[in-house]
């Protein structure tokens, strides 16, 4: 089955290469509108056809795995998809620990793989409509393909170094895609920020890989997991890996890049926040879960991080005016749930929530894209009363918000319940804190989901008073429902978002589910009450003086700027000044000193021959006198 896996990974890669190199061939030179349109059409085919093929192959792989009689395991995917396969394509000899280019397909990777290809294909199809008039659509779709390919590589990698390669390519692609509208300085800044912050985590990640690899004597995941590694080493390695996880999955304290990454086109947000990049962090922990289980302090840290992240991000989401930023903070919050699930010892709950979250968050983002596409603005204060003008999107997003809030029967209800139940029953030292945070977050989640839903689709319509669209936002306003290529993915994604939860319906802990449901509804109800009182106004006013802090995400960016950026800038300025004044000054000063001295000497070199002769004779006399006196 390894060739099939390789094909799944390579097809999007080939699509990326073809889209980058071939979409304009053979008439690449002239940038006429007709050419652009033809190139976009061709690029769309290049993007969608391999994506579809990849999806079909993944499904076939899943079917094969389901039928196979696998080795089994504790995780639920082992029961669902018991078949697994692993194959080494080549071994790169490095002189110490060899790198084996290994692919591995088991239940976990196939599950995530399905999520990835489905969301990616949905995003590609959606982008055809969303980015219809963009002159750089070809490179955009090619980057998405490359992104998909990289994520699939991460998912199917059987070797940590191979995994790391995909991991890094993803970082690159996120940079390219977030900065797609680089004409606006803010967008390119956001791209650079995302790149740098995730890179900060990647450093730790890379060293974590090295630590593990060195300790195990191999980079192969099997070997690493089965190796007998001392606990200290394991804690060090997992802590380092955690940095990478926090970076990629936007966990505290490296979460700041994600809200800013909303500068990219909305489908990109869907892709990054639902299926690929942020999922990668959670996936890695799940993949290496045995190692993490051996390092309890790491899991404790992860739990604290998750607790802080889920509540803080949810509160921040509650105060945002930008619909996409609401969803972004929501993503951070939900990812923190998954991290919490992992910290609580249940990788199954985390992956389950990852899957459902991937579905409903992609749905929400694509729906938000459709709304933005319709309104021409990201800001909820510009929206309102949209349920009548875009009913299809309204329906899709209602399902999405329900899943987010954890309302039955939407998928989020089951997965979140699983996570909360896992937290409730865990024996981690951070358990009480984590549990309290999780429950509180459920309430806040209900509140902000309700608020976003109400602000967007209910209340008075403010569409007519719109200003011209700004760069960096969706740039087409046609006042109708979005094109069909955008609606189809919404419809398709709505199905798993609604129904995926029933996959695990048997294991629902109804007690804790009821508690969380009540808390969630309580939060939603408070918001609804506030909203009923004054539909024109933002229900976030209930936060009172706390609102600004929430809106600014508790000043983390400012704090970072004050703690890291400014001192570093000051240091850099100092270094520059030192270089200019001390180092260059020494160089220039020595030059100037030489020039000055030579200037003094030059005074004698004034071209007056008589002066020369005078000096000559004076010297001669001195020598004579000296010779006579001394001799």
């Amino acid at each position, binding site marked *: 089955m390894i060739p099939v896996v390789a094909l799944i990974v390579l097809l999007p890669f080939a699509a990326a290469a073809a889209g980058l190199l071939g979409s304009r061939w053979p008439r690449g030179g002239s940038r006429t509108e007709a050419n652009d349109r033809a190139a976009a059409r061709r690029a769309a085919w290049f993007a969608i056809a391999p994506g579809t093929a990849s999806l079909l192959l993944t499904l076939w792989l899943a079917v094969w795995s389901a039928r196979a009689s696998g080795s089994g395991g504790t995780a639920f995917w082992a029961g669902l998809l018991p078949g697994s396969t692993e194959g080494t394509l080549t071994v790169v000899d490095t002189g110490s620990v060899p790198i084996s280019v290994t692919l591995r397909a088991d239940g976990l990777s196939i599950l995530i793989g399905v999520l990835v290809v489905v969301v990616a294909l949905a995003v590609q199809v959606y982008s055809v409509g969303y980015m219809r008039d963009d002159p750089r659509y070809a490179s955009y779709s090619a980057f998405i393909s490359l992104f998909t390919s990289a994520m699939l590589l991460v998912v199917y990698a059987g070797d940590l170094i191979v995994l790391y390669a995909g991991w890094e390519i993803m970082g690159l692609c996120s940079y390219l895609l977030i900065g797609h509208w680089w004409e606006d300085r803010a967008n390119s800044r956001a791209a650079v920020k995302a790149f740098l912050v995730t890179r900060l985590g990647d450093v730790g990640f890379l060293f974590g890989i090295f630590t593990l690899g060195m300790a195990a004597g191999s980079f192969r995941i099997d070997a690493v997991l089965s190796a007998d590694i001392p606990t200290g080493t394991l804690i060090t390695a997992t802590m380092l890996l955690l940095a990478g996880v926090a970076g990629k999955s936007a966990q505290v304290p490296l979460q700041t890049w994600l809200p800013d990454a909303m500068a990219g086109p909305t489908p990109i947000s869907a892709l990054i926040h639902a299926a690929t990049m942020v999922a990668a962090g959670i996936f890695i922990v799940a993949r290496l879960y045995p190692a993490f289980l051996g390092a309890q302090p790491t899991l404790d840290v992860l739990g604290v991080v998750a607790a802080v992240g889920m509540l803080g991000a949810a509160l921040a989401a509650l105060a945002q005016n930008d619909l996409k930023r609401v969803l972004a903070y929501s993503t951070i919050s939900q990812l923190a749930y998954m991290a919490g699930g992992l910290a609580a010892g249940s990788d199954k709950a985390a992956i389950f929530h990852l899957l459902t979250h991937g579905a409903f968050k992609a749905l929400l983002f694509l729906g938000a894209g459709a709304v933005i596409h319709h309104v021409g603005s990201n800001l909820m204060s510009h929206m309102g009363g949209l349920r009548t003008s875009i009913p299809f999107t309204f329906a899709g997003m209602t399902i999405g918000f329900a899943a987010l809030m954890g309302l039955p029967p939407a998928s989020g209800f089951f997965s979140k319940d699983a996570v909360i139940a896992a937290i409730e029953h865990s024996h981690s030292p951070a358990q009480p804190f984590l549990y309290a945070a999780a429950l509180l977050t459920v309430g806040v989640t209900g509140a902000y989901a309700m608020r976003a839903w109400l602000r967007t689709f209910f209340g008075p319509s403010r569409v007519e008073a719109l200003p011209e669209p700004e760069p960096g936002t969706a740039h087409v306003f046609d006042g109708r429902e979005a094109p069909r290529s955008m609606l189809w993915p919404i419809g398709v994604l709505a199905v798993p978002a609604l129904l995926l939860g029933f996959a695990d319906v048997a294991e629902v802990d109804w007690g804790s589910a009821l508690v969380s449901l009540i808390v969630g509804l309580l939060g939603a109800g408070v918001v609804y009450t506030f909203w009923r009182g004054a539909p024109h106004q933002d229900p976030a006013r209930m936060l009172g003086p706390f609102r600004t802090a929430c809106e600014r995400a508790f000043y983390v960016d400012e704090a970072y700027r004050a703690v890291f950026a400014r001192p570093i800038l000051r240091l850099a300025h100092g270094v520059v000044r030192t270089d200019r004044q001390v180092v260059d000054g020494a160089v220039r000063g020595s030059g100037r000193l030489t020039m000055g001295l030579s200037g003094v000497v030059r005074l004698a*070199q*004034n071209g*007056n*021959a*008589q002066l020369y002769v005078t000096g000559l*004779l004076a010297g001669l006399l001195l020598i004579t006198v000296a010779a006579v006196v001394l001799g």
Partner: protein
Amino acid sequence: MHIVYPVVVSALLFSIGVYGVLARRNAILVLMSVELMLNAVNLNLVAFDVWLRDRLHGGQVLTLFVIVIAAAEIGLGLAIVLAVYRNRRSIDVDRLRDLAEGDAPEVSPQSEVSPGRVAVGEDADREAGS
């Protein structure tokens, strides 16, 4: 005859010539001073020739040679001085500063029309033609 007399006269004459060479700015005056120095040497030569009673008359013969060389020198020197005068309208040795490092202070701005040739003062425009 005490040899010290001609030798002292010679030494003083030489010193006077030294002063002239160093202090005079007109090139012809400098040439004259050089002649004074040469004459001082000649006087010395003659005096020592007499003192040593040289049978070969080396001193006096050398004096004659020096005189001849002085004549040749004055001919060439004047030719050079005249060539300089033709080009620069000046034979002040302290204004002939092409050897100076950097800009010679004497070069007036309007005279920098032709590089490599420092024309002095208002004579710059009516040079050559002779």
